[in-house]
C-alpha cells in the first residue's frame, strides 16, 4: 500500500472494511515501522501544535514587510458586533484561516499543511468545530489522517508546491485535504470523501502563485480563507450526496498537468500576477532599499 491513488484507498477501505483514516494510519505504521499508538500520538502532536498556533495569535504582530497582521482580529471584532453574511461557523472559519496564516507570516509557530503558505486552511475548518464541542480530539486526529492521506496522493500524482504547480497546488491541495477531513468527521463514506476532494480541487483549478515581493504574505494570507471556504462548501455538497462527475484521481492528475503548463511567472517566481502589479513592484522596491541600507550598516 503506497497512497498512490484515491482509488487504491477506496479499494482498501472496501475490502478490509476499514474507515479511510485507518487505511492511512496503517500505511504510516508500515512505512515508518512504528506502532499504531506512536503514529497516533505523532498526529495528535500535530493537532496540538495547530491549536497552539491559534491560541498564541497576537493581533499586534506584523510581518517583515509590515503589510500583514491584525486582520483576524478585525474579523472577530466584526463578528462580535454584527451578524455576518456567513453565519457563526463560517465567520469563525474565516477568522481562524487569517489568524494562522498571519501567524506564519509573522514568524510564529505553525504546522505546514501541506505547506507553510497554506497552513491556515486545515485549522480554519477544524478548530471552530472542536471549540464548540461538536467533535472530540480523537475524531479530529482521525480526520487529520484523512487529510494527510489525501495530501500524500496529491503530492505523489500532482504537486503540493507553489513553485512546481502554482497556488492551486498549495491552497488547492490544502482545501482538498480539509474538504476530505470535514466529510470524514460527519461520517461520510470513502467515496464521499473522494467527491469532496474532487470538488474542492476543481473549484480552485488554475490558481496562480504570485506572492508580492516573493514573500509568503500577499495574497497568501487571504488565499487561506478561500481555501477554507472552498473546503466547507465541497464537504457540504458531498455530504448532501452531490457527486463530482470527473473521477477524483483524474481531477488530481489534471491539476498536476495544469500546474506544469503554468508559465514560470505564475509559479512562485514573483514575476507575474499580483506580484507584477504596480503595487507589488513598489513593495519589492521598498524592501530592496531597506535591505541595501541594513546591509550597508552591517559592513
Amino acid at each position: 500500500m503506497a497512497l498512490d491513488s484515491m482509488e487504491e484507498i477506496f479499494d482498501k477501505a472496501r475490502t478490509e472494511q476499514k474507515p479511510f483514516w485507518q487505511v492511512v494510519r496503517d500505511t504510516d505504521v508500515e512505512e515508518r515501522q512504528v506502532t499504531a499508538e506512536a503514529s497516533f500520538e505523532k498526529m495528535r502532536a500535530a493537532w496540538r501544535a495547530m491549536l497552539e498556533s491559534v491560541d498564541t495569535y497576537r493581533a499586534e504582530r506584523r510581518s517583515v514587510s509590515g503589510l500583514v497582521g491584525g486582520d483576524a482580529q478585525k474579523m472577530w471584532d466584526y463578528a462580535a458586533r454584527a451578524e455576518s453574511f456567513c453565519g457563526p461557523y463560517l465567520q469563525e472559519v474565516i477568522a481562524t484561516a487569517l489568524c494562522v496564516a498571519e501567524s506564519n507570516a509573522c514568524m510564529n509557530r505553525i504546522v505546514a499543511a501541506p505547506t507553510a503558505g497554506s497552513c491556515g486552511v486545515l485549522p480554519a475548518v477544524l478548530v471552530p468545530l472542536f471549540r464548540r464541542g461538536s467533535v472530540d480530539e480523537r475524531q479530529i486526529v482521525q480526520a487529520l489522517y484523512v487529510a494527510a492521506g489525501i495530501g500524500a496522493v496529491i503530492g505523489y500524482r500532482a504537486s503540493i508546491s507553489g513553485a512546481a504547480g502554482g497556488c492551486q497546488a498549495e491552497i488547492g491541495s490544502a482545501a482538498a485535504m480539509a474538504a476530505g477531513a470535514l466529510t470524514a468527521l460527519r461520517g461520510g463514506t470513502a467515496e464521499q470523501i473522494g467527491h469532496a476532494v474532487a470538488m474542492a480541487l476543481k473549484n480552485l483549478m488554475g490558481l496562480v502563485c504570485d506572492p508580492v515581493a516573493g514573500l509568503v504574505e500577499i495574497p497568501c494570507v487571504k488565499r487561506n480563507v478561500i481555501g477554507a471556504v472552498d473546503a466547507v462548501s465541497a464537504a457540504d455538497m458531498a455530504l448532501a450526496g452531490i457527486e463530482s462527475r470527473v473521477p477524483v484521481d483524474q481531477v488530481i492528475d489534471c491539476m498536476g498537468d495544469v500546474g506544469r503548463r503554468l508559465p514560470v511567472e505564475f509559479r512562485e517566481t514573483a514575476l507575474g500576477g499580483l506580484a507584477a502589479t504596480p503595487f507589488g513592484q513598489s513593495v519589492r522596491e521598498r524592501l530592496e532599499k531597506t535591505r541595501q541600507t541594513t546591509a550597508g550598516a552591517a559592513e
Partner: protein
Amino acid sequence: MLDIFEILGPVMVGPSSSHTAGAVRIGRMARTLLGAAPVRADIGLHGSFADTGQGHGTDRALVAGLLGMKPDDLGIPESFAIAANQGLEFRFHTVRLRDAHPNTAVLAVESAAGRKLVLQAASTGGGRIRVNRLDGVEVSFTGNFNTLVVRHQDVAGELARILNELSVCGVNIANMSLCRDRRGGAAMTVAETDQRIPREVLARIRTLYGVLGVTYYEKEED
C-alpha cells in the same frame, strides 16, 4: 510514497518551509558537523536565498540553526540578539554559484578552539535540505539519516576499513559516497546509516590509519 508527516508538518516557525525551516536545518547541520558551538560564521546567500531571504527570515533562521535551534524554536526571530549574547559573530554577503539550487547557502564557521568548516547546502523544499559541499569536496546527503562524515587521506583500502567498523557493530548503510578533491589528496567518505553509530565505534574510526577527522550527524528525533 510521501511520508504523511511531511504533508502534515513540519511543525515550524514561519513563514516559509524552504526559506525558514530549511535554513534552520542548514545552520544546525553546520554546527553539528563542526562538532562545537561556532564563534564566527561567514554566511553567503545564493539565488532566492539572497533575493527574498531577508523577508523570509532566512538570515535569522540560519543563525538560529548555528545556535543549535530546531525549526520549531520560538527563539528563531530573536536569533541575532541571542547570538550576540552567546558570543557568535556573523556576517552575511551575497554569493553567485554556478549550477547551484536557488535556495543555497555557504557557511564558513569556526569554533572557539579554532576548528573550521565550510559547508554548502540547499533547501530543497518542504523544509528538507541537502548538503552539496563540505570543505571543498562534493558530497550529497540530507540529514534524513544518521550521517557519518570521514575525512581521510586518499589511500588504498581506507573505505574498507571504515565499512568494516560499521558492519561489525551491525550498522546498516542506506547511502554512501566517496569523493576526493584530487588524487592522493584529501578524500571524504559520507555514509548515511539506518542505525545510530555508537560512540566507541566513532572513536575507533577516528584512530584508523589515514583518517584526518570524523564528524557525525544524528538524525533529528521525531
